[in-house]
């Protein structure tokens, strides 16, 4: 079985620079969005190079990159097959970006929010347990900047991000910080992550951050975990668009 021909019907406009990057992006999107379904064979190098208007060398290099991302399996004699989604590297920057850009049908922002809630709540707990005056001052400052704005603005959104990144950094868990931060910053680039405005969005955001800070100040580990988790899950639930394609567990 080969991919449906219509996916390759129209030739792409030619991008002279960074050809292989463009081909990789295009192929990742075709696979992640299911336009070339799991288990299907990729068209041979010849037609692909014609479709993309690039040399076979560029195609070969691109296929190798997709193999590294777990999206393709190259089998001697059997051709190149789209891998089962279970073996895709979801955290690869290109794969993740494509998943998020197609969130409407893929629902990946729900999953991302759950991962953030798990990691950030634990990190808030750690920060509460090992509270330092300097750390407290930095978190409090971010909240203060949000408060001064009185309504949602670029500055308030920026202070919101600083609040979260500061808690992550103070936790001292380099891995959890790195993972949560990368997911968070990537999500922030997506319009769907900002979702729809809801009434009193700004007030409730500020209040929830204040609860987290309060719990950390009191060195209340359990409360720091709960307030951070409730904030991340709650604010996403309130602003997310309905996603008909997937049920959230």
């Amino acid at each position, binding site marked *: 079985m080969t991919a449906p021909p219509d996916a390759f019907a129209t030739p792409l406009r030619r991008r002279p620079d960074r050809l292989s990057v463009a081909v990789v992006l295009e192929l990742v999107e075709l696979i992640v969005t299911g336009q070339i379904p799991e288990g299907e064979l990729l068209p041979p190098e010849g037609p692909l190079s014609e479709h993309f208007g690039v040399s076979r060398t560029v195609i070969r290099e691109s296929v190798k990159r997709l193999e590294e991302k777990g999206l393709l399996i190259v089998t001697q004699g059997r051709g190149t097959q789209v891998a089962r989604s279970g073996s895709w590297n*979801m*955290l690869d920057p290109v794969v993740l970006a494509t998943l998020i850009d197609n969130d409407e049908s893929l629902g990946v922002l729900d999953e991302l929010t759950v*991962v953030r809630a*798990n*990691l950030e709540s634990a990190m808030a707990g750690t920060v509460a*347990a090992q509270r330092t005056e300097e750390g407290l001052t930095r978190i409090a400052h971010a909240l203060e900047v949000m408060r001064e704005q009185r309504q949602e603005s670029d500055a308030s959104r920026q202070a919101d991000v600083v609040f979260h990144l500061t808690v992550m950094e103070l936790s001292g*868990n*380099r891995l959890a910080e790195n*993972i949560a931060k*990368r997911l968070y910053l990537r999500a922030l680039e997506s319009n769907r992550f900002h979702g729809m405005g809801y009434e009193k969005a700004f007030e409730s955001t500020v209040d929830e951050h204040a609860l987290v800070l309060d719990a950390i100040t009191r060195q209340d580990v359990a409360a720091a975990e709960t307030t951070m988790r409730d904030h991340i899950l709650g604010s996403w639930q309130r602003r997310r668009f309905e996603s008909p394609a997937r049920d959230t567990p």
Partner: protein
Amino acid sequence: MTASREVAKGLPRPARARRPANLARAITAELVERIVLGTYPPGSPLPPEPALGEAFGVSRTVIREAVKILQEKGLVQVRQGAGTIVTAPSRWDMLDEVVLRATIATDDSLAILDDLVVTRRLLESDMAHVAARVAGDETLDRLRDLVDRMDELVDDPLTYAEHDRAFHDTIMRTAGNRLARGVVRALESQVVNTARYMGRAERALCVASNQGHRHIYERIAAHDPEGAATAMFTHITEAWLVRRGGPEAPSRLRR
């Protein structure tokens, strides 16, 4: 210095490793290790392309390819006029296999492995929580079969380890959070070959570990989300503590 590098030094380079793409990858791995070790500290420039090319005995094209890969992994930033600058560690893609492998290999303390266990534990506990709510008969049968089979495999640590991974993966797939599973799989993939992480393969450890699995299975089968999450948390913590050893008290593992 890592064991693999010690070994690599003594061996002749296989012919296929000399192909440009593989060459670039080998040089990338070396540069990643130097950056992670702090040989080239954050904020400092990478040596210029001609100097690197000369040092490694390769063309500038190969160096350029390697720098491009470093850029994709978030380790360097190419600034017009300022050259190639090493970025701050928080911008590195720690889940990238080369970066994570170098980070683990160059960390003499157990800190990075403790953090890895903490991170994995958080996500897997939550996934066990979800699995206890949504698991159907087919999943429960599979989990029970795996636990029963592992009881028979306690004298065969390698096969046991395969079933162990299948058990954890079944729960992650059931929970359905592809990103959370992706994080755990990326973390796991770089430590299964790390002796400090895997510890000794002993019958007693397999027996203890499978008691943990059975408990997790029972809580999931009872559709007890809190119980399943706690069982997973305890299992991952205990399995690591018996393998861990090390002088300092593992305060990072405290909940």
